[in-house]
């Protein structure tokens, strides 16, 4: 790491009054390790921020847009989501499914969601020709009149608008290739947060330490003011950034596999009801397509009798398998109980209660729903929007700080405090951690490796300038120890 770890090109060790003031020599004491580690952490924070900043900016901006989608959905799809008038008693699912089936010719029912509120519509989802992979064609049925109010292509439970913003945030609408960008952001976000947090909190301040740590200095000179905003906002946002990074990685493309394997090995997986029917004459071989509606009424009645409250989703099983009825409330308190029902007899054959989930599975569920702004409703949305704005501001402030340190003699400014070298022990510790983390988070590992390689190979093949003392260094760039 010719420059990344050892310092910037000549001329860019910009004097930094705040930092130099904050870094007096600390002979002895218990902080010797920090003296060796700090230069490395500063470079890490600088270079990661410099190169990952744009990706974080995009992820935060698209995430900010995503937080608005629940309200947008209610405005754009009001007619599909709500009935015009609540009159009388809801019709049977059989009637509603029949209406939906007529509206989606050639479709196979994959899920039925009775309304969770009196003025809601029933959603009947289909696997239908011409529908995108991972999407469903969903008919929205007025339960009181049996009239289909809309037919939309949905992504899971998300309506088209939210699905678009969801895809924008996850993949920039680039498919699996685009998933790399979110994983890249999630893989490095925690590194930025932790490195920045350690630099900010451990930083020495002569007076008003607590206030200057927690709050920005609005009256300071421009450079210090920018840094204080960057640091103070980062301090408050750090927990949120760590949370977003951890939850984001759980459904990432490469690290997500490792997370899944880890959860599987530690028996932290989300429990599911078994769809295997007990042997015997009661087991229905299959439910004909025309009977889906009637069977839905039967299994829903059975689960309600067994204590499963709304909102639920009914999923038809394959031939000879049980149907599942699962609660789908993703706001606090989460309702995730599930039951498997024999479609022929309406007998509940298996039950999994959310209360019995392993703690890790519950945390994963809560984490995912909090990341998506669902867990605490509008409070979550406001928190996430503020977090996204904070991240965007920090990225901009970071670049602004870098820009303000120009001009420098050796090109763009390097990390602040570039003349300080990390301790060998610090490099070893960080190196070991990087190896372990790089294996678990492959995109972080590969990007770190690419960065190191470019840096080290560039330094190795570059013919060094002759030093002022006339010493011959013509071989110092060669890759031979």
């Amino acid at each position, binding site marked *: 790491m010719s420059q990344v770890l050892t310092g910037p090109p000549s001329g860019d060790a910009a004097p930094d009054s705040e930092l130099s003031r904050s870094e007096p020599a600390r002979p002895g004491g218990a902080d010797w390790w920090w003296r060796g580690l700090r230069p490395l952490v500063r470079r890490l924070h600088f270079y990661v921020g410099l190169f990952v900043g744009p990706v974080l900016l995009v992820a935060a901006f698209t995430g900010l847009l995503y937080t608005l989608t629940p309200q947008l959905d209610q405005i754009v799809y009001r007619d599909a989501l709500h009935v015009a008038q609540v009159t009388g008693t809801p019709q049977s699912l059989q009637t509603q499914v029949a209406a939906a089936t007529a509206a989606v010719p050639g479709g196979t029912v994959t899920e039925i969601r009775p309304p969770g509120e009196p003025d809601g519509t029933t959603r009947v989802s289909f696997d239908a020709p011409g529908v995108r992979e991972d999407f469903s064609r969903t008919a929205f049925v007025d339960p009181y009149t049996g009239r289909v109010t809309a037919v939309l292509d949905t*992504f899971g439970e998300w309506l088209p608008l939210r699905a678009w913003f969801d895809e924008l945030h996850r993949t920039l609408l680039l498919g699996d290739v685009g998933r790399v960008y979110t994983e890249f952001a999630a893989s490095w976000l925690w590194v930025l947060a932790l490195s920045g947090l350690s630099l900010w909190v451990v930083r020495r301040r002569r007076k008003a330490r607590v206030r200057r740590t927690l709050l920005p200095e609005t009256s300071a000179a421009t450079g210090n003011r920018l840094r204080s905003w960057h640091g103070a906002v980062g301090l408050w946002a750090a927990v949120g950034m760590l949370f977003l990074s951890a939850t984001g990685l759980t459904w990432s*493309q490469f690290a997500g596999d490792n997370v899944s394997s880890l959860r599987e090995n530690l028996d932290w997986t989300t429990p599911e009801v078994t769809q295997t029917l007990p042997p015997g004459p009661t087991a229905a071989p299959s439910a004909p397509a025309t009977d889906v509606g009637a069977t839905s009424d039967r299994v829903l009645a059975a689960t309600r009798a067994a204590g499963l409250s709304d909102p639920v989703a009914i999923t038809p099983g394959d031939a000879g398998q049980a149907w599942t009825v699962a609660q789908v409330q993703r706001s606090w308190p989460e309702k995730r109980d599930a039951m498997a029902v024999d479609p022929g007899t309406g007998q509940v054959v298996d039950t999994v209660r959310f209360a019995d989930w392993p703690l890790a599975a519950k945390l994963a569920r809560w984490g995912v729903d909090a990341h998506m702004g669902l867990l605490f409703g509008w409070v979550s949305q406001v928190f996430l929007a503020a977090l996204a704005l904070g991240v965007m501001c920090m990225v901009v402030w970071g670049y602004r700080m870098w820009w303000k340190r120009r001009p420098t003699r050796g090109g763009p400014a390097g990390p602040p405090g570039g003349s300080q*070298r990390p301790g060998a022990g610090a490099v070893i510790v960080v190196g070991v951690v990087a190896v372990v983390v790089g294996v678990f988070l*492959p995109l972080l590992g590969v990007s770190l490796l690419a960065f190191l390689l470019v840096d*080290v190979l560039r330094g*190795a093949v570059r013919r060094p300038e002759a030093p002022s003392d006339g010493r011959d260094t013509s071989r*110092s760039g060669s*890759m031979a120890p």
Partner: protein
Amino acid sequence: MFPVGLSIAFTIVFLATGAYSLVRFARTVAVPGAAAGVRAVELLHLLMSMAMIAMAWGWTGGPATGSGTVQLVVFGAFTLVLGTQLARDRAPRAACAFHTVMAAAMVWMVATMPLLMGMGGGGGTEAADHAGHSGHTAASDATAGMAGMAGMAGMAPGTAMAPPAAPGWAVAGTWVAVALLVLTAAPAAVTAVRTARARRNAPAAGPTTPVAPDGPAADAPVADGAGAVAVLARPAPAPDLETDADGGLYPAACHALMGAGMVVMLLAML
């Protein structure tokens, strides 16, 4: 894959070389004035050691896998850069030749391991399933990678099938790689042994530094013992990261161990 005992042996050897390389790398970062080339070489040692451990346990796959592609790119880049330096005579030839051969051998191993060991191109333990984002319900569509020839489509379940014979060019290329590794690593082994003997026989005194037989090398980079037969001279000049204070024993031993490990793994693949 390899027998467990052999995998454990590979792990011990390459853990040692990897740890040593990491320490040397850290020193080049921490000490002012270290040449960029030294850092690059220590990084190469470290990456090779890690890759060899992963290969020993089958954690990484062939060229068709992501991990294999990364290795091909990384070690391919090192081969190109080192080879260029060797051709331009910008580095001590013996050391540069050894590093070039090692990097090229890594590329060869990754590229031909599936052929030599009768494995499918997938190999490794990489899962191709993705945690779906469909409504963030974590639906997964597991796609099993081809783990080997047995169990391929068209075969009866449970049918055992002998791995196909490796192509002749792959076997011949592997022997060439073995020969080149032995040729370029042998001087390092000789240096390590001689230095160790000299240290044992020398009276306890100050630190020593190796000198190339054909000239003084008090301030010249020494090729980690590779190629240059070290003799001892005292007193030592200022501490030099590129030679170590141990008279070049450990760098030479590191090279010898890495070369030997790679040779054994290549032979085990045949």
